[in-house]
């Protein structure tokens, strides 16, 4: 397998190291030894040494959610996410990507989203239409909210409306490239999608990014790939926290006890942990789950649920257990993928709401 020297070095360091064994949300949920950074590294290292075929390890490579818990946990700075993504790219180049992943990639290339969706719900269509006029600020909803959780997208719009923000929402919103990046890493197709998105975003002064996955891509990955965005890009949570500070939202604290599920894209990748907490504490009483802020545990997403739904469900169940074990009644989410995943678990111990739900009192 062709792999960069940097990646090989990380693979060979991780293949015999067990130190992050406890931290993988997938491994903890499945109990499977293969769902560890060292197992993925071992597999890749054996491919590099001709002892196993790349195709034989690809299912496992796609079981990694790339949340970076292992990267953060590593004292010496080895990066399993990096070599996982490079293995995905290499599999695509060698034509050994699993069929179920190829189907998602094809959808991304054809429709801009892995789900192959082209239409959203009527309510969201109307809400987008109401914000069709060009303003200085663009609200980027992202493919998860737009096509898989349109009610949440509508609420995201409502919150900004409530604060009398003037903003645009695009009917033909560009894909950020985050999904392609997850599926095939730094491929030409990924960079092309990102470049096209950056061009559209550059037509606005400010871009408010609703989905943390897109925010991570635009604020972090674009830079890594040398793609410039000629606009101020802010996360939805930091933008809303600013509205609160500026007095544009008038919160009433319900006194309800809640915990906040940090999206790793915000807390680990963008180092944003307090903005969402400022919002939550304005409307409720905040408690903290085990492993919060930069140590957060990924609670699922919609993309991986397309091909390993049972595992994503187990991941969400474990995070719900973290909340219930400290007696929490409500989990507040700031990532639509985690909102959907946590709500997909059949349980009645804890309520799952979004930041928008909290603000709108819904």
């Amino acid at each position, binding site marked *: 397998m062709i792999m960069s020297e940097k990646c090989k070095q990380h693979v060979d360091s991780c293949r015999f190291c*067990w130190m992050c064994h406890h931290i993988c949300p997938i491994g903890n949920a499945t*109990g499977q030894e293969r769902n560890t950074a060292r197992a993925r590294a071992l597999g890749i290292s054996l491919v590099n040494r001709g002892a196993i075929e790349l195709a034989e390890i690809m299912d496992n490579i796609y079981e990694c959610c790339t949340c970076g818990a292992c990267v953060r946990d590593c004292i010496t700075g*080895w990066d399993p996410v990096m070599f996982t993504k490079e293995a995905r790219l290499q599999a695509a180049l060698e034509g050994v990507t699993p069929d179920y992943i190829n189907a998602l990639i094809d959808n991304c290339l054809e429709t801009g989203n892995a789900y192959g969706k082209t239409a959203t719900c009527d309510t969201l269509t109307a809400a987008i239409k109401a914000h069709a006029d060009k303003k200085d600020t663009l609200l980027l909803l992202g493919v998860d909210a737009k096509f898989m959780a349109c009610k949440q997208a509508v609420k995201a719009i409502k919150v900004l409306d409530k604060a009398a923000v003037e903003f645009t929402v695009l009917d033909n919103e560009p894909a950020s490239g985050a999904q392609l990046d997850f599926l095939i890493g730094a491929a030409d197709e990924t960079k092309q999608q990102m470049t096209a998105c950056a061009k559209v975003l550059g037509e606005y002064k400010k871009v408010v990014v609703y989905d943390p996955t897109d925010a991570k891509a635009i604020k972090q990955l674009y830079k890594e790939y040398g793609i410039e965005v000629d606009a101020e890009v802010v996360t939805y949570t930091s933008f809303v926290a600013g509205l609160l500070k500026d007095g544009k939202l008038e919160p009433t604290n319900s006194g309800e006890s809640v915990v906040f599920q940090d999206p790793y894209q915000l807390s680990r990748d963008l180092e944003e942990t307090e903005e969402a907490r400022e919002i939550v504490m304005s409307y409720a009483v905040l408690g903290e789950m085990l492993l919060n802020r930069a140590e957060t545990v990924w609670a699922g997403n919609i993309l991986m649920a397309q091909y390993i739904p049972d595992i994503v469900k187990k991941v969400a169940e474990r995070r719900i257990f973290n909340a219930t074990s400290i007696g929490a009644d409500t989990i507040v989410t700031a990532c639509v993928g985690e909102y959907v995943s946590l709500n997909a678990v059949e349980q009645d111990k804890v309520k799952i709401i979004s930041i928008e739900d909290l603000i709108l009192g819904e």
Partner: protein
Amino acid sequence: MQYQMNEFLFAMILTELEDAVGKENCSTRAIDKVTHSVDYYWLSRMWADRGCRMPEADIVVCPENAQEVSKVLKIANYYKLPVTTWGAGGGTQGGAIPVAGGIILDTKRMNKIYEVNTEGMYIECGTGAIYKHIEYAANEVGKATMHYPSSLTCSTVGGFLAHRGIGVVSTKYGKIDDMVLKMEVVLPNGDIIETSAAPKHAAGPDLNQIFIGSEGTLGVITKAQIRIFDQPEERRFRGFLFQDMHGAFQASRELLQKFKPSVMRLYDEAETASLIKKIVGVERKGAFMNIAYEGVKEMVEVEEKILLETFAKYGAEDLGSEYGEKWWKEKITFFYPGHMMDIPQMFGTMDTIAPYGKIEEIYWAMKEAIETNFPQAKFIAHFSHWYEWGSMIYDRFIVEGKDVPEDPVEALRLHQAIWTCGVRAALAHGGVVNDHHGVGIKLGRLMKEQYGPAMQVFEGLKKSLDPNGIMNPFKLGL
């Protein structure tokens, strides 16, 4: 009855195992077999590094509880298939490697925390739980497990029990075998048993201690009650520099007649000049020793006074608290790639234990044996677990990559030879095969040398409990 495995029979057995644990928890995929073939044992790592496949299981099964383990063992017994129990694979002795193929029984789905009991001060959990997760559960109620080995995050409760593990605060709180109240064990025939309701009794021999350290050769430990402790009001550190090891032993022995510190770690000159210099920053000639003492604040004050007086008597230079605190903060850093020995180096940790009258002699004997017979090997050591009666040596040999044969079989031969030489030197001077890493396949051949006729007790247990010899064959010398 001996028989030849064939495709048809294999498929039949697989369906039975799938029926026992669920299809999704039963795998013949290459990635699962490969992953379960390489543990932390240097030889398995070297083998994989050379692009060779280690012996693999034919089937990987992941039961959820004792009932499912029981079903698996009944099937395995019927077909006389080897069963190797796998926790998280962090063992250094090759104990979890399925050298005879058959079934790998991965315990990590048995990771439930059933009860956190702050009155009886224990957590009851499945033995597949990663120990760090047990620590999290204890911390959530303001308690602690006080079992902090470097492998805290990468080993299961069952793994520590199977190999008699130990943590850095063991001098005060004990080894893993001191931390268990009760266990559930599935015997090789599938029977599920519980050890006694309390760990101290006069109702015959201690069932816990029969299975602790048995490395999966006598059954599968599936559930355990693990002790938890109050968090100490205060934990203080003090670093010392001894000019000779003998003074350090004398001082430590005397100290332990007065009170039990939590951490006691003495590094020989070679390790002080290498690892301690690199990680903790001590750039002095001599033997560095770190002591931590903890508990109720008033008692800690008294213990500090005793410590300083005792160590001063033996000429220890007081380095203050800074190095000790740094050591505590970095205690796991030592074990990350980039800090820890790693391939292409060849290395091994030959820990042994003995009473004070013998431990220094063993240290020098092992050092001489290794350095004389294998001049390409460097010998470093520290002494990290202490008792009123003795101490253990955590001694390592390191052979740099240029001196390590590229041929895997030649590398294996050299590794085996160094180990045999070192452990025989320990045995000859009153040590034991191992202190807290276990035996596995690495040291099984030396068990008979240590125990002599006493080995028949273990062999009798094995024959009685596992007449078909299916449980973790070729481990522990059984």
